[in-house]
């Protein structure tokens, strides 16, 4: 059995399982903050996240860096009380399996049936019975020999719990447990195995063997397959948190603590959560992160209030008062009063609570300067102190007494009480009480004219005051640092947001640029395609024109040759022919040749002019009785000869089409000058045809040639046809060619 704490203003750590006080001064506010967030937001599953797992691979905590443990006396200390309380709570919920909330992952199994001996062993109170272990040993061996291994394992769990709750370490029991679990570990259900491991971890922690404790706790950390196992795992994590605390690994403690919290949360174990909250609050308090400590403490108190567990509620009030005392909080007095009022309403039988509550109230009175009332209470509770003796609650009495006696300046009744506390307070850096106790002792020595001791305690008091000042400064610095870090982080966030915005803008610009570029590329491609098409069409047109011109030239030459040479030769021949029959035949030949020549090429178009040529062409059709053609030709402009020739050809083509296919009554050719434009129009009232179909049939050479010739001279051709007749319109710009 041990204890931690003494004096007032107990700096005990919440439900510190072994009542051990940590002295390490790890600073890791930022880390724990972030962990707290991840832990509370429930991202850790019941299993173990990779991040968390890494903390398990830490080397087993080697004890005592800057932490120490006091094994002081056979009585309960405040911390062990707290521990007992919380362990009871945890075990209560483990055993009763009656969580208020439904677990998320596992259903709660019904309570397991126990025989009378099992039930007896299960009650932790019976551990005080000296025969407890003997009873267990006999019954356990009996079960093992009977081959009821599961039953034996269950017994081992129950008895182990009783030992743990009572902070007992029995090496023979531990050996029994280890041997049993080594031999039968694989065949017993996981809830018993983990239960045995958990108990081993707890028991080793009790005797500060953190290495072994941690070893067994880690063995407990399996992936849980049932509710009981999950609770065991969560409890093991809780236990590991205490171990980490006690080995000054506060960061690991917080990590595993939040994991345990998460698991209890998921398992619906409110009591488990409360225990973890309390411990976490203690860790933060030790880290001087008072606001976080207060927050977690408040959460724990809320649970305690809900569960209407007076002991717990009282302890939570006590926590709060202790925290405010350390903080020098202005509401300390009010909370002290609340504690006292709660005690009065509660009226527990244990003298410890009375001593503690009245001590706290005395302290309040002393602070308020109500010394007579304080004195009255001090005298009233002095006998209680004798009864309770060095109980944890007696610390508060000593604190109140010292404060009272200091105010009285009448010397002290029992200097040894204080002297005994001094080294402990020094170890726990409880500077407030050190100052108080030292100054009380110094004053006392002065009264007794013991100057040497007066000087000595005076010095110690001053030293403690300096240390306190130092600590306060540290806390202030820490808070400022926290503030600074927060601001820095905010600035970083702002900066990152700006950067992000810049990046987004840049990306936006890039995207826009890309889009614009591709659009431009596409436009350029289209432009080039169009240009290419234009060029090709120009080349095509040029080619067509050239081809047409060449053809016309060729036909013209043939026509001229026929007419001029052949006809002349025939004419000469005719003159030499005396026979009138031959002359007549030669005349026919000459006429035929003239006809052929005329069909090949319009005669002397350039000399005669387009107007006359067209009129004559129309007249000829009419005179030859091929079609009734009227014409209305107005043409005074000067198109190049080639263009005139093509227009002439178009008329020829159109009219011959009408003659061949249209069955028209008549046809009319008009040529009009409209401003700069020249409009040639050939209209008939024949039966018409389907233009598209005719053009696509590939047979309509005449129509195609009209279009081609128009294109070649840069004219626009429009062919419309219906059952009412056909209209071919050629529009050409006078100055184009």
């Amino acid at each position, binding site marked *: 059995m041990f204890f931690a704490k003494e004096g007032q203003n107990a700096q005990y750590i919440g439900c510190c399982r072994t009542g051990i006080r940590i002295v390490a001064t790890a600073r890791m506010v930022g880390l724990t903050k972030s962990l707290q967030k991840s832990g509370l937001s429930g991202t850790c599953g019941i299993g173990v996240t990779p991040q968390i797992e890494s903390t398990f691979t830490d080397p087993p905590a080697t004890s005592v860096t800057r932490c120490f443990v006091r094994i002081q006396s056979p009585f309960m200390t405040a911390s062990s009380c707290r521990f007992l309380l919380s362990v009871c709570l945890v075990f209560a919920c483990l055993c009763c399996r009656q969580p208020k909330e439904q677990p998320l992952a596992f259903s709660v199994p019904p309570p397991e049936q126990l025989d009378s001996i099992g039930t007896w062993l299960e009650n932790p109170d019976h551990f005080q019975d000296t025969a407890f272990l003997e009873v267990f040993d006999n019954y356990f061996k009996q079960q093992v020999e009977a081959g009821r291994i599961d039953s034996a394992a269950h017994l081992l769990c129950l008895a182990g719990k009783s030992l743990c709750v009572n902070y007992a370490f029995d090496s023979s029991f531990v050996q029994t447990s280890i041997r049993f679990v080594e031999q039968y570990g694989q065949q017993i259900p996981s809830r018993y195995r983990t239960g045995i491991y958990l108990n081993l971890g707890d028991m080793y922690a009790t005797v500060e063997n953190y290495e072994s404790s941690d070893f067994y706790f880690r063995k407990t950390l399996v992936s849980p397959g049932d509710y009981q196992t999950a609770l065991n795992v969560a409890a093991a994590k809780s236990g590991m948190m205490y171990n980490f605390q006690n080995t000054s690994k506060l960061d690991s403690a917080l990590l595993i603590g939040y994991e345990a919290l998460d698991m209890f949360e998921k398992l619906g174990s409110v009591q488990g959560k409360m225990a973890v909250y309390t411990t976490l609050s203690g860790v933060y308090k030790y880290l001087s992160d008072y606001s976080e400590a207060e927050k977690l403490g408040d959460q724990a108190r809320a649970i305690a209030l809900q569960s209407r567990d007076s002991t717990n509620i009282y302890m939570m009030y006590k926590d709060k008062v202790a925290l405010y005392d350390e903080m020098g909080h202005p509401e300390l007095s009010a909370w002290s009063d609340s504690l006292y009022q709660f005690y009065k309403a509660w009226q527990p039988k244990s003298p410890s609570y009375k001593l503690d509550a009245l001590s706290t109230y005395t302290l309040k009175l002393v602070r308020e300067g109500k010394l007579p009332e304080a004195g009255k209470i001090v005298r009233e509770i002095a006998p209680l102190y004798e009864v309770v003796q060095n109980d944890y609650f007696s610390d508060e009495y000593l604190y109140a007494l010292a404060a009272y006696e200091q105010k009285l300046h009448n010397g002290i009744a029992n200097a040894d009480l204080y002297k005994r506390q001094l080294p402990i307070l020094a170890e726990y850096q409880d500077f407030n009480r050190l100052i108080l106790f030292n100054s009380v002792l110094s004053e006392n020595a002065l009264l007794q004219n013991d100057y040497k001791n007066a000087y000595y305690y005076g010095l110690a008091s001053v030293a403690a005051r300096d240390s306190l000042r130092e600590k306060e400064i540290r806390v202030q610095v820490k808070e400022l640092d926290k503030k600074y870090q927060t601001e820095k982080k905010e600035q970083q966030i702002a900066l990152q947001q700006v950067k992000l915005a810049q990046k987004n803008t840049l990306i936006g610009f890039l995207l826009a640029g890309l889009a614009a570029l591709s659009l431009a590329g596409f436009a350029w491609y289209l432009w080039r395609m169009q240009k290419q098409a234009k060029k090709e069409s120009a080349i095509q047109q040029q080619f067509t024109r050239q081809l047409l011109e060449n053809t016309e030239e060729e036909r013209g030459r043939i026509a001229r040759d026929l*007419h001029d040479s052949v006809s002349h030769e025939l004419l*000469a021949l005719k003159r030499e022919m005396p026979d009138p029959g031959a002359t007549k035949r030669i005349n026919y030949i000459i*006429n035929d040749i003239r006809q052929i020549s005329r069909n090949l090429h319009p005669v*002397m178009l350039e*000399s005669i*002019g387009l107007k*006359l040529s067209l*009129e004559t062409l129309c007249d000829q059709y009419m005179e030859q*009785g091929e079609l009734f053609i*009227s014409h209305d030709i107005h043409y005074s402009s000067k198109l190049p000869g080639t263009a005139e020739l093509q227009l002439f050809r178009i008329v020829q083509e159109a009219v011959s089409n009408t003659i061949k296919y249209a069955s028209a009554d008549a046809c009319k050719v008009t040529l009009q000058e409209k401003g700069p434009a020249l409009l040639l129009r050939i209209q008939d009232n024949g039966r018409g045809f389907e233009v598209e179909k005719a053009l696509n049939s590939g047979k309509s050479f005449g129509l195609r040639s009209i279009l081609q010739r128009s294109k070649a001279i840069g004219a626009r051709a429009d062919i419309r046809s219906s059952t009412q007749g056909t209209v071919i319109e050629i529009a050409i710009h006078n100055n184009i060619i």
Partner: protein
Amino acid sequence: MATILLSDDHPFTLMGTKAYVQSLGHQICDMCSNGISAYNMILKHQPDIALLDMSMPGMNGLEVLEKLQTARLDTRVILLTMHNEVSIFNRARELHVKGYVLKEFSTDVLEDCIKAVLNNETWFSPELSNRLNINTDTASDSLLTRLTFAEKKIVELIGRQNTTKEIAQLLFISEKTVENHRSNIMKKLDLPAEKNALLVWAIKNMPGK
């Protein structure tokens, strides 16, 4: 007795023409084988008559005629040509040609032509107006052959009981033109100037459609 300039790119024709013209008692002032020299020589000699072939290198007969027209010379031009083409003839007339002689028939008619031109008359080969009938058949009804193709078409449409207005629309011509054609037709057919005479005749004589 007149001064005459000859131009032809066929030397045989040229020689033949020269001999013939001289035999008529006229004086040949110059002979050319292309249009350009012909034009220049005409300017130089200013003959009474220029006898020009139509098809010549340099300038053809029409072009020379056109140039002379703008030069306002007294020289009268007779075109001697193989081109029995109404379009050419019409153009030549526009340019105030005095004579138009088809070579095929020149031996018979050139003398008449020169005579007429010297008397300040115009003279054109009669074959020019006959050419239309060269290939047309003459077997059909005698009255009908008096009509031109256009006139026959109109008679046909009248026979199909079209009004003047309808005929004008069908043939893309004005009603006035149709009326003109009608009166010409009636004259040619010796029909009385009665209202329905042409209609009755048309129905009776046109091949039924």
